[in-house]
């Protein structure tokens, strides 16, 4: 990479850190640069410490970077907490009137903001100074600001432009080691966070009903959906608890529309009873579990990949389900469309594992988001049934999939049920029937696994393979290129389609390597256990992170070097 700059903007919640991040991201995007931003905050509305960390490059970015080139400190705490992350020659931009000394560059941020029209514009001052240090043309910042404040009126635009100018001018003459020449090009893609991508994917999949109970970090998904509901046939209902939320979507699905819920681990715990009910009554639903660390309330605003086995095994007894774990917003969009499609096709629950990192981080998506031309619903009308007056909702078929009619849409009387049942849907406790019905439901798994995409290999013929799933995939790909530059024979194998595990492809891809290591955001290497359990193949080592923060590529690269040694 010729340009690889990381800017960290830190301060208290309520200081407008996210706005600075958004504005800088937009300026980069509009000039044809690649950018990604992680959002790190505490579970509080005011005070404390939070930051946004932006990485800017002229090459696609897959993960955050471990070193900071420019630290923008909106409070003193930011300096103390993050100065050790500075790269050699890195700069701290902070409040003050002193002379530039060592790595610190002081400007009177608050005073400049007051001059512009209020303390509230301090973040705009800081962003101006930031862009000035990077050598960005002011004109682009001006345009971005004008758009951003357009809704608030000309007065707000004027005030903020003044703040921007004062910040921009205040650091004129200061030197920043990584300043580069900006050659504005057309944007490489759109900026999108995982929450929005999941919501757009659901919309494109023709999801018409979403019910939820607010829970970080999943709530953003529902806020987006709620905004779409003014323009599309979609109802978003805030339920009294997660139990009601999932049962509402099961009711909506039974009545015939695609429906979803999104929550985090604790909320998913409450949904488990109804997950089994959806499976038993064979009503397709989609559940997004946006993972955060810890049992109980844990760390509400942090990231983790520790709900994998729970998601695969949640509920009593045995039934088939799909589990997906997208790596990026682009993948999340596509995964949502497939999750709904496959849930309908097999009349089973689809679960999508996201996490705080994927949900709250801004990524650049280069591929345009495409909606399917048609939605296949796999629903039987009277005309599709040989004898609608003798309709069997749970008819035994070779595939295990029974024709699915909808209630009150024809002559066929639909009987749905959560008790074990015969073909018509009335309760049955007969031993033979129980076996037939369990076989029918679980018999779908073989065909379901054929619809799973194989893992994506990158230098798949390498001696050592790094295996990852979900949002850790990006950092692993960058780690591979770092290691290969050092001459190591390393590749990776990344999983987005987790369950049913695409067995043949997994076995053949892993068998080629001399050894494989597994990278996961949990403490017990859950995916490594799953691979061993399913394929009999055992990993040679693991790289695990469970401090609530996303992987940096360097951590994986160092981990691999240690393991190989």
């Amino acid at each position: 990479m010729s340009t690889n700059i990381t800017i960290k903007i830190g301060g208290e919640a309520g200081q407008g850190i996210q706005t600075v991040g958004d504005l800088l991201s937009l300026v980069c995007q509009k000039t044809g640069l690649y950018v990604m931003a992680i959002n790190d905050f505490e579970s509080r509305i005011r005070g404390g410490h939070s930051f946004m960390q932006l990485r800017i490059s002229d090459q696609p970015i897959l993960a955050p970077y471990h070193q900071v080139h420019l630290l923008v400190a909106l409070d003193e705490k930011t300096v103390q907490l993050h100065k050790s992350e500075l790269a050699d020659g890195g700069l701290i931009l902070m409040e003050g009137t002193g002379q530039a000394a060592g790595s610190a560059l002081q400007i009177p941020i608050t005073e400049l903001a007051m001059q512009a029209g209020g303390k509230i514009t301090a973040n705009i001052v800081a962003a101006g100074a930031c862009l000035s240090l990077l050598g960005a043309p002011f004109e682009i910042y001006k345009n971005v600001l004008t758009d951003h404040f357009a809704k608030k009126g000309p007065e707000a635009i004027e005030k903020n432009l003044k703040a921007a100018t004062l910040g921009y001018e205040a650091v004129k003459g200061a030197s920043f080691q990584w300043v580069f020449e900006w050659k504005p090009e057309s944007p490489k893609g759109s900026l999108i966070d995982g929450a929005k991508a999941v919501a757009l994917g659901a919309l494109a999949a023709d999801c018409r009903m979403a019910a939820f109970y607010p829970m970080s970090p999943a709530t953003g998904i529902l806020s987006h959906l709620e905004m779409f509901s003014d323009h599309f046939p979609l109802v978003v209902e805030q339920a009294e608890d997660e139990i009601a939320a999932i049962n509402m979507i099961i009711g909506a699905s039974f009545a015939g529309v695609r429906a979803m819920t999104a929550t985090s681990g604790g909320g998913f715990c409450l949904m488990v009873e109804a997950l089994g009910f959806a499976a038993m009554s064979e009503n397709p639903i989609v559940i997004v579990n946006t993972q955060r660390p810890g049992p109980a309330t844990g760390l509400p605003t942090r990231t983790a990949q520790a709900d994998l086995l729970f998601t695969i095994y949640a509920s009593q007894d045995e039934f088939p389900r799909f589990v997906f774990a997208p790596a990026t917003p682009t993948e999340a969009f596509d995964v949502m469309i497939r999750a709904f499609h496959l849930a309908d096709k097999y009349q089973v629950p689809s679960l999508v594992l996201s996490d705080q990192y994927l949900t709250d981080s801004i990524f650049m998506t280069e591929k345009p988001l495409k909606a399917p031309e048609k939605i296949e619903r796999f629903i039987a009308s009277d005309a599709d049934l040989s004898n609608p007056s003798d309709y069997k909702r749970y008819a035994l078929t070779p595939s295990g999939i029974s024709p699915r009619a909808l209630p009150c849409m024809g002559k066929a009387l639909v009987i749905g049920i959560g008790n074990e049942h015969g073909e018509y849907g009335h309760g049955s406790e007969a031993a033979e029937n129980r076996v037939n019905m369990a076989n029918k439901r679980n018999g779908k798994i073989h065909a379901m696994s054929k619809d799973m995409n194989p893992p994506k290999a990158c230098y798949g013929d390498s001696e050592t393979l790094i295996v990852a799933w979900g949002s850790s995939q990006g950092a692993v790909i960058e780690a591979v290129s770092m290691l290969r530059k050092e001459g190591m024979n390393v590749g990776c194998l990344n999983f987005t389609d987790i369950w049913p595990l695409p067995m043949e492809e997994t076995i053949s891809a892993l068998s080629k390597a001399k050894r494989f290591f597994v990278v996961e955001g949990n403490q017990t290497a859950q995916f490594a256990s799953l691979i061993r359990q399913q394929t009999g193949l055992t990993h040679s080592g693991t790289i695990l992170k469970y401090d609530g923060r996303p992987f940096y590529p360097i951590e994986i690269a160092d981990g691999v070097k240690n393991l190989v040694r």
Partner: protein
Amino acid sequence: MLSLKDYQSDIDIKWCPGCGNFGILAAMKDALVNMNIAPEKLLIISGIGQAANTPHYLKCNMFHTLHGRALSIATGAKIANHDLTVVLNCGDGDCYGEGGNHFISTVRRNPDLTLLVHNNKVYGLTKGQASPTSDLGMVTKMQHHGVISESFSPLTVALALGAGFVARGFSGDEKHLSQLIQEGIKHKGLSLIDIMQPCVSFNTVNTFAWYKSRAYYLEEANHDSGNFEKALELSRQWGDRIPVGILYKKEKPHFTGRIHSLKAGSLISRTYNSAKLEQFLARI
């Protein structure tokens, strides 16, 4: 015209002989036939328990769901297709115990559902433990020193939450109950009909005779069902005299009628518009 035969099911009925549920089943059939609602135009959603078996003994579209969750599932079904006629069969433990939170929130939402609660004041299917509506002091095998919690008053709670249709029925009077069910189905919004239903196996206190000697009809007592304060007072009346009939009735805006995105028609009736989506996605 429909006849009772149209609702005749050939499923073996699992209730005990003499169960109060038989009266409710008969009243439902009578009401549905009287209103000329065809089986294929009706959706019954039930929870779990003896009451929840009821729709199997009719012939219609039905969803026999989870303990306590029927109201949430029915709300979801109404959101998807608000043109459905939806009736619920739930028990007292089901609706007021396990599903208590959903009961509270559903009354507040006021979806157009007819909720029949078979209130036998005991858990029947699990063999006679106390339920939320068991009277204070009632002795059961599990509460052998007597129930020590105050009895839950569903009618009072529903009124306090702003319910628009609050009634009490008696399974021992099928004709009267049928009338209540018909009124309930006609009412736009949530209609709560709490039904006094004797459990002949596990409730030796609240028997047919016990109810019969205490029940009096609000129609005959010239009760004004538009009088909220009076309804609230009646909802607390229990003991020597028990009011039966419509305590309170008032049309209020109902849930799906208030949802902005349903003004253009039910969700299920709308078409997928790929071109509009493409335009929307292109602007992201």
